[in-house]
């Protein structure tokens, strides 16, 4: 009896032992037949065929362990050629990683590419799994990785990310979404809109902004006709809160103003270089709205008042207050109302009879708030308020399970969500409020990249690129008033404040000659022939010109530039000419004696404008005061720099 039981037990024991052995064998077998091991053998075979000798790998898991960053990346177990410079033309996964600023030893792989670093199979490391929140970024959006550490502003070597950030700023996404690091952009207020435009125009504009103005940033809200009517009625009913306007002078009351006045207006319009910023029928600058049909958009009274003083009608507008005389203002208005008409619309300009709904005001406000019009356009009316969209401050790390894809059938990943949402905002939810921006594919990829970079990342602060927002500089007193009046900061930067479209004026007193500065304010000309956005003639008064030139000459100086000693003698001029023409080829971009390129400023003009100290400072390091300039630093020696300066300063004296 006992023996039988023991026999039975020993059978059980034997079978379970074998089973456990099998189980134990699974793990080494899985390891032996693993994907990475096969890749490593394949790699070792492949490199033997290579013309240059490459060291074979030792079979085994490879990993970067960077405890400081919390990185354990085993990607190089298969991506074996990442740091090997001679495998550029080899197929993935053995290919050389493109050269870049950072090395893998420094940061590993996942801080940039995301994905599951610890995994050892393709599927798991790519990370498209239920419980892995950060799958690898598709290559299109790879620069989002850069943005995780390089927060804010321009990421010099990540052009797609930088473009995305510029677009997010330009499209004013921050008006509806919380996006730290972006600023509110100036958009015209709607106060007094009923005195500015007519109802027909509002209806056309709201129905399809891009049809009215191709280049506008105003997105299409895809409003129904009823919604457009309600909003138009609501906006046209607001007239109690506008700024008081000067009534039209008698000369402008005629449908077609006097020809001489129009002629004068045409001259002033040209002199003021309005097309530096404004488009006219598709031609001109891109900083301000299209003017081609402006006379059919705004009322004549409004246009007259606006040209007289744009900043009273729209406080904060980037347009300068031109120093036009009373007659000039009349003339420019006369010219614009004669020339810039919508000739097609002239015939049906008869106001269509329209009776507003009885409760249009209440419904209008509700619609205005629903679509958060207040986000961009200010409107001081009781009952109007902001009504923001979702917070996007950490959209790049939002759990993918929180994204609602509806029945769109679109790949359920975070990049795919953002890309498609920006491309077609109503795709996941039909009655979404977000408007349609009508963007090109490149721009969509750039915006998606910049949004994916908005992450709650656990990378320690010390590893992040330091981002210092520019210092805030607010000029005071009379100078401050002039800077505001002429909107200098719309194009120029002073002490970090402003928009760097034209030159940085922080050292202007050391850069240019006092006499030149005054004559330039009186009649600005184009320093670089290729520019489209040119300095306008602001028609400043003589007192203003002297005041502002004195101010620049006294306050915006830099001893580092001023103390440089330059001697101009025959020998240095001769050597300078040799260096410029025979060695460094400066004339391929700069005009010398009327010959040469048109990229930089003509050297023939330089000595009238610039101080020798500035010329020297510039040629020794063109990027010193403006890192984004393309003028190549030639690495000149001090002597070479001084000789070239002597040559350039002597040029126009001939």
């Amino acid at each position: 009896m006992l023996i039988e039981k023991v026999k039975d037990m020993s059978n059980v024991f034997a079978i379970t032992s074998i089973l456990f052995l099998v189980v134990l064998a699974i793990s080494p077998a899985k390891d032996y037949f693993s994907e990475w091991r096969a890749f490593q053998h394949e790699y070792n075979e492949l490199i033997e065929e290579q013309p240059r000798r490459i060291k074979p790998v030792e079979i085994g898991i490879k990993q970067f362990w960077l405890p400081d960053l919390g990185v354990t990346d085993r990607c190089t177990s298969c991506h074996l050629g990442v740091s090997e410079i001679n495998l550029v033309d080899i197929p993935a996964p053995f290919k050389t990683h493109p050269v870049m600023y950072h090395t893998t030893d420094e940061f590993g792989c996942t801080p940039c590419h995301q994905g599951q670093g610890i995994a050892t199979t393709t599927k798991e490391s790519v990370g498209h799994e239920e419980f892995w929140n950060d799958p690898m970024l598709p290559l299109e959006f790879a620069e989002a990785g850069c943005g995780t550490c390089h927060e804010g502003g321009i990421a010099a070597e990540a052009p797609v990310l930088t473009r995305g950030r510029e677009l997010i700023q330009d499209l004013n996404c921050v008006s509806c979404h919380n996006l730290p690091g972006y600023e509110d952009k100036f958009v015209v207020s709607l106060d007094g809109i009923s005195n500015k435009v007519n109802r027909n125009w509002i209806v056309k504009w709201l129905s399809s902004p891009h049809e009215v103005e191709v280049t506008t940033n105003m997105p299409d809200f895809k409003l129904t006709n009823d919604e457009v009517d309600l909003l138009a009625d609501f906006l046209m009913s607001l007239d109690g809160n506008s700024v008081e306007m000067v009534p039209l002078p008698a000369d402008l009351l005629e449908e077609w103003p006097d020809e001489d006045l129009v002629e004068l207006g045409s001259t002033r319009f040209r002199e003021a270089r309005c097309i530096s910023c404004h488009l006219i029928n598709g031609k001109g600058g891109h900083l301000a709205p299209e003017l081609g049909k402006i006379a059919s958009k705004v009322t004549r009274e409004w246009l007259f008042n606006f040209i007289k003083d744009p900043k009273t009608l729209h406080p904060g507008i980037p347009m300068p207050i031109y120093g036009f005389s009373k007659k000039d203002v009349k003339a420019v208005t006369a010219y614009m109302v004669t020339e810039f008409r919508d000739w097609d619309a002239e015939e049906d300009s008869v106001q269509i009879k329209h009776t507003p709904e009885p409760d249009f005001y209440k419904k209008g406000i509700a619609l205005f708030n629903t679509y958060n019009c207040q986000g961009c356009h200010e409107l001081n009316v009781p009952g109007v308020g902001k009504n923001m969209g979702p917070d996007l401050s950490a959209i790049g790390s939002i759990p993918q399970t929180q994204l609602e894809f509806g029945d769109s059938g679109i790949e359920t990943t975070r990049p795919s969500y953002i890309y498609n949402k920006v491309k077609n905002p109503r795709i996941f939810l039909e009655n979404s409020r977000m408007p349609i921006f009508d963007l090109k594919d490149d721009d969509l990829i750039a915006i998606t990249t910049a949004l994916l970079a908005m992450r709650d990342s656990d990378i320690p602060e010390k590893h992040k690129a330091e981002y210092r927002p520019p210092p805030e500089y607010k000029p005071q007193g009379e100078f401050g008033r002039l800077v505001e009046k002429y909107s200098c900061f719309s194009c120029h930067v002073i002490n970090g404040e402003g928009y760097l479209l034209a030159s940085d004026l922080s050292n202007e007193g050391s850069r240019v000659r006092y006499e030149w500065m005054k004559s330039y304010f009186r009649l600005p000309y184009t320093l670089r022939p290729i520019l489209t956005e040119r300095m306008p003639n602001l028609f400043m008064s003589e007192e203003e010109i002297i005041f502002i030139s004195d101010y620049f000459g006294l306050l915006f100086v830099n001893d580092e530039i001023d103390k440089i000693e330059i001697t101009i003698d025959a020998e240095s001029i001769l050597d300078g000419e040799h260096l410029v023409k025979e060695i460094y080829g400066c004339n391929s971009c700069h005009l010398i004696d009327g010959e040469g390129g048109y990229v930089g400023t003509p050297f023939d003009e330089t000595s009238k404008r610039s101080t020798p100290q500035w010329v020297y400072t510039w040629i020794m390091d063109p990027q010193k005061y403006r890192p984004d300039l393309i003028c190549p630093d030639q690495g000149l020696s001090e002597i070479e720099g001084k000789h070239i300066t002597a040559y350039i300063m002597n040029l126009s004296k001939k």
Partner: protein
Amino acid sequence: MKLIISITTIVLLLILSSCSSEPKKELSKSFATQSALNYSARQGEFLYNKYCTVCHGAGGEGDGFNAFNLDPKPRDFTDFEYLSNFSDDRLFEAINQGGRGINKSVNMPSWKNVIKDYQVSYLVSYIRHFSTTNNNNEMIEK
């Protein structure tokens, strides 16, 4: 006997669970046209557009707006025959050292203090694509 069966089932279940795989969902590929250029060439494209197009032209044909002022004319990068005899290293030197570094016109300046070495290699990749795509197109036409 029951014991044996239960142990076996547990072990089999364990094995099975380790082998199971999720069903695959087929979803539409949502974005985007993968660029025909690789990473280096894409980076090179941005640099090229910033620094080179004024003379060499956006299409690399040596016809940038500043080209008509220059003698000799800027290099036409679509010239497959010329470019194929020009090694990557030499192209690199031409950008880095300028014309004077490789015994060519000094009208081509040296960029080594503005464009970093690895960025020059991006430019080389991008410049190469002009002649290879052009060549491919010609071959297709033939």
